[in-house]
């Protein structure tokens, strides 16, 4: 057992309102620079949709992540020692700027400086790369809220999991449903980006598992851009270095949540420590596809287990971090309550950002099969006057989950390598908490039904209450449990603090002892 600490994240998708505040917070702090304009370390996608960069999930195009070979071992799909070095002069599966979008601004000055004339002056878009006027044809959230569905949502790589009829059903106007998928770097346990870097510029921090690119060591070989299956490593065309989400480590070390999480309007984001067994990383990443999520959960250890604590201590994990792990909201969501799933576990990088799958688009699913609701349907708004669309009645307990409007297979293709039971388990738990709270506050649900629901989903009343609290009421300090970084100790590794002892004020540039 080799226990290490990892800062992990949970995004509660039921709560994301797709406001992009997170993206803007990140952009303003980190990527508002030449060469980085197109980079969105945090971006929010509408699902179904092709995402950013276009179709990033389709590894036949981008060759990201790992695959399991017939010998049972995993290899990088589009990089690695052999492929990476052979393709070092030209990387055949690297996205170019057109796969993201050409960054642009507007010529605002023209509004002020245009000479008097008959026409209203306009601010034309100009490219931030060439400075030439351009037509904006693409943006990081071009397909927001299903706009341009024929070109985008229908080309979502996850649609491959559905039959043609199921696909068509998803796009009938009356049935259309979507949800938002905010994405940042997953700070993976088995990162493809680190493994692919020929220079060795990318590394995982031992103390908190944040994955960083050393800008001085990066030599523009661009292999990480290919190897990250989530396309969360970006090439800066101006500096010739790759860049990625740094999980706001300077903020984290000061005890603040990363900017995207801090600013999140829907309060969907949680951050906390997980203790994991580093000895098992390789075996976990090489598990069979159907076992991947299970093994991934197994590698996360119980922070109250004595053996785990002892091994963590032997590895130099500070007590404060162990305490944070015991108090971690992410551990609760992921392990204790079994509410969260990793995004595309089949990429085998063991992502440390987990998602609570969204229940709402699934619930908005009731079919009007017997025509009973016909006269209540507003023909223009296509909604039922009695809120039929979001039926939270509990007559048929799990019926709505199973006949979901957002097919479970679609969600499973995103979050569980195709295993629908894993997704429906999570959704049922979300539903169970609602039923429990309804019993408690509204009272139109019988106690017997409430207990049956909790029993079927394996939750206790305390757990349901805990989920409700963390979901609906939690404050900053509950959502973000950040361990102290102990930089004061790290400092002593770099600099002997005794050196400046006995010096005045801030110390001397030159030693104060005098020989002359």
């Amino acid at each position, binding site marked *: 057992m080799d226990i290490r600490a990892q800062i992990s994240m949970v995004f509660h998708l039921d709560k994301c309102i797709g406001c992009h505040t997170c993206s803007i917070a990140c952009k303003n702090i980190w990527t508002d620079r030449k060469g980085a304009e197109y980079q969105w370390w945090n971006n929010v996608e509408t699902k179904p949709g092709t995402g950013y960069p276009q179709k990033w999930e389709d590894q036949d195009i981008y060759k990201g992540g790992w695959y399991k070979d017939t010998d049972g071992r995993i290899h*990088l799909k589009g990089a*690695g*020692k052999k492929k*990476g*070095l052979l393709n*070092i*002069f*030209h*990387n*055949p599966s*690297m996205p*170019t*700027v057109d796969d993201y979008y050409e960054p642009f601004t507007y010529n605002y000055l023209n509004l002020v400086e245009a000479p008097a004339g008959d026409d209203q002056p306009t601010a034309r878009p100009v490219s931030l*790369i*060439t400075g*030439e006027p351009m037509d904006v044809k693409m943006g990081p959230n071009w397909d927001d809220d299903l706009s341009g569905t024929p070109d985008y949502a229908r080309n979502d790589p996850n649609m491959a999991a559905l039959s043609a009829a199921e696909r068509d059903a998803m796009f009938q106007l009356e049935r259309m449903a979507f949800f938002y998928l905010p994405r940042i770097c997953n700070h993976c346990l*088995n*990162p493809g980006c*680190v*493994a692919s*870097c*020929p*220079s*060795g510029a*990318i*590394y*995982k*921090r*031992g*103390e908190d598992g944040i994955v960083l690119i050393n*800008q*001085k060591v*990066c*030599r*523009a*070989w*661009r292999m990480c851009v290919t190897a990250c299956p989530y396309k969360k490593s970006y*090439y800066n*065309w*101006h*500096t*010739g*270095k790759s860049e990625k989400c740094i999980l706001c480590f300077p903020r984290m070390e000061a005890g603040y949540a990363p900017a995207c999480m801090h600013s999140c309007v829907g309060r969907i984001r949680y951050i906390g420590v997980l203790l994991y067994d580093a000895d098992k*990383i390789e075996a976990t990443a090489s598990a069979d596809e159907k076992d991947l999520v299970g093994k991934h959960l197994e590698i996360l250890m119980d922070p109250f287990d004595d053996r785990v604590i002892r091994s963590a*201590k*032997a*590895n*130099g*994990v500070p007590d404060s971090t162990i305490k944070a792990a015991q108090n971690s909201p992410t551990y609760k969501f992921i392990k204790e309550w079994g509410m969260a799933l990793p995004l595309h576990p089949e990429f085998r990088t063991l992502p440390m950002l987990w998602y609570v799958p969204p229940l709402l688009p699934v619930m908005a699913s009731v079919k009007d099969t017997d025509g009973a609701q016909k006269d209540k349907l507003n023909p223009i708004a296509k909604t039922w006057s009695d809120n039929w669309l979001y039926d939270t009645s509990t007559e048929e307990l799990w019926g709505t989950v199973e006949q979901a409007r957002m097919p479970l297979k679609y969600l499973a293709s995103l979050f569980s390598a195709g295993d629908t039971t894993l997704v429906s388990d999570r959704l049922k738990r979300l539903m169970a908490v609602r039923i429990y709270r309804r019993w408690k506050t509204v009272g139109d649900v019988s106690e017997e039904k409430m207990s049956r629901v909790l029993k079927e989903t394996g939750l206790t009343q305390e757990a349901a209450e805990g989920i409700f609290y963390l979901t609906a009421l939690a404050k900053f300090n509950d959502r973000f449990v950040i361990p102290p970084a102990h*930089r004061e*100790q*790290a400092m*002593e*590794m*770099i*600099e*002997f603090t005794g*050196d*400046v002892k006995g010096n005045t004020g801030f*110390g001397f540039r030159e030693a104060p002892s005098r020989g002359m």
Partner: protein
Amino acid sequence: MNLSNIFLFVGLPYAALLLFVVGTTQRYRNKGFKVSSLSSQFLEGKSLFWGTVPFHFGILVVAGGHLTAFLIPRAVLAWNGDPLRLMILQITAFSFGLSTLVGLIALLARRLTNTRVKMVTTRMDLFLEVLLLAQVVLGLWVALGYRWGSSWFAADLSPYLWSLFKADPNITAVAAMPLPIQLHIIGAFLIVAIFPFTRLVHLLVAPLHYLNRPYQRVMWNWDRRAIRDPATPWSKTRPKNN
């Protein structure tokens, strides 16, 4: 042995070498951030392929050939003892030379025509590409016009280069060479001289160490095991930055 020959074949190579050594050290120490080749594949990927791949593989083989003939001239001469083997060597070298030329022309054309790529092109990039182009054209001309270059390079030029390294320059052989060959040699020294000021520096950081490192890299801010152990001092070497 006139003065200009001494300047070109003794002065220039030493000056080039000096520039190379001082220049690269300075660049690495003061502008370490810029020791790489600014890739433009992100801005344009398709036509890059037809330039960079033939160019790089071509130049690797051709430059490797020059290096071999310089380092182990006797072995090259022995290999060339058989006319068939000599032919094979010459034809291979020439075709890789052609591939270098084709690639270089494609790269130059791309740099001059693609508006996005122009944004990341410096004057030095263009100067270097033109210089390389001249050098490659000269090289191919020499290969065609003055037969069996691999043999006479090993026999005549290798000793000259060695004499430079032994600080006992002997330029009788080069001085007697025909003009295109002399120009090719001068071009080579020029390239060595401007090397540190161009994108060529990426050659020195070729990531061969990738081959023998484990795939995953974890780095610790402090020695995570020692820090828990009260018996060990945290640092073994006393830091010097104060």
